């Protein structure tokens, strides 16, 4: 079972590996392990599709636009000091957040998170599809329990526009690529990117 190692560096340097969650080992439980041909492996409808979907979620025009926007704020002619992305998004206000932190948080958006997101979407589409919603509902219960310390990571969903529950408002999705560090920036930046896209 997953063992969580509390890291002494968690605050000063947040790029230490985060301990895995069930989502991180979903691929092992579902794709690895022994299958014996004289036994039956029950077909789990939906799982294969979910995995394909999860990969498609990642690259999107929305991501590109936000990357471009971050880049457009750079001083292209200056050579020294590397600005961290949260600084770029947060103006001068990114206190106590480093890009490393964004990186660590972003780790939450690995396979499992994408799967959850897709599962959630699937569930949204058809509440009666047990294979999909069974898992998603459980995940929601779990998130509500607040037992999972990695919970925040799941909420940095690649597709935050779907399946948002009101109680998640306290920690709004930080955007597709996890580079955004502050909620208020989300409100400020997104519409701008959108407006530009409508030009």
């Amino acid at each position, binding site marked *: 079972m997953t063992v969580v190692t509390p890291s002494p560096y968690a605050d000063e340097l947040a790029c230490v*590996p985060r301990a895995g969650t069930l989502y991180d080992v979903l691929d092992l439980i579902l794709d*690895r392990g*022994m299958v014996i041909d004289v036994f039956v492996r029950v077909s*789990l409808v939906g799982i294969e599709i979910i995995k394909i979907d999860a990969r498609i979620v990642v690259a999107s025009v929305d991501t590109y636009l936000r*990357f471009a926007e971050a*880049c457009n704020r*750079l001083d292209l002619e200056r050579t020294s*000091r590397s600005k961290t992305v949260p600084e770029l998004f947060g103006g001068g206000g990114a206190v106590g957040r480093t890009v490393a932190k964004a*990186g660590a948080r972003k780790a939450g958006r690995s396979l499992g998170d994408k799967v959850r997101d897709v599962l959630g979407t699937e569930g949204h589409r058809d509440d009666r599809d047990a294979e999909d919603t069974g898992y998603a509902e459980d995940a929601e219960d779990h998130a509500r329990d607040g037992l999972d310390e990695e919970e925040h990571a799941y909420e940095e969903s690649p597709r935050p526009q779907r399946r948002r529950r009101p109680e998640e408002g306290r920690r709004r999705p930080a955007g597709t690529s996890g580079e955004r560090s502050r909620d208020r920036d989300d409100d400020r930046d997104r519409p701008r990117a959108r407006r530009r896209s409508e030009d």
Partner: protein
Amino acid sequence: MATASFAAPSRGSAGAGALYVYGIAPAGVRAPRAGGVDGAAVRLLTSSGLSAAVSAAPARVRARRRDLLAHQTVLGELARQAPVLPMRFAVLAGDEGTLVAYLREQRLHFEAQLHRIRGCVEMNVKGVTVPGCFEDLVHRDAKLRELARRTRRRPDYDANVRLGEALARAVTREGRRAAQEVRSRLVPLARRTAQGEVDDTVVLSASFLVPADAEHRFRRTVEEQARRHGARIALSLTGPLPCYSFVDAPTTAAPALTGG
């Protein structure tokens, strides 16, 4: 192999007496106390020096969070006592007789498999790209810089998409390079390595078969690497896990079993 149980695959269930199989361990392990899939009690079926952890198969197997966790927890409990050959999620045996006969028949194979993983744990490392260091990327890559300048002069939707896409590619490229470096540090610490699926964002996904006494060192190395490459790749480490990635089913064609 077609067995009688395949007759009703759409229901995702097997007949009465069907067993959900978690894994196979050497005889002598204690039955896991954790509840199994669908809350069923887990017991051991022992034959020919091997014990299979099983529970009554649920009417329907679904990939629910609590069931995936149950599968994982039962195996974890076994793995802490002895080497265990983990089954994939949702493997059912037709009935007790079938399973016991199979353990007897494949005893040598299973024992060899157990021997290979004895004293080892599986450590899974995943790494996702970190979209940071744009300034660094732009300054190092003349093409990217030129694209950024042009976009700034004529900011329109298409230019921004192109710039963003180029940045995304650069982020992936940096992540892959970091993944390569991380991997090269971890491989020497492991007896075996199993590669998982990667894509443009998940640039590292690998399992490592690590001797239990080297687990700490492995962990420290991952942390070290995470700090070193944190600007390019965010690592997550899961383990110790049952050795999902390092077990092989018997390769012999399944013998025609009596009934199903």
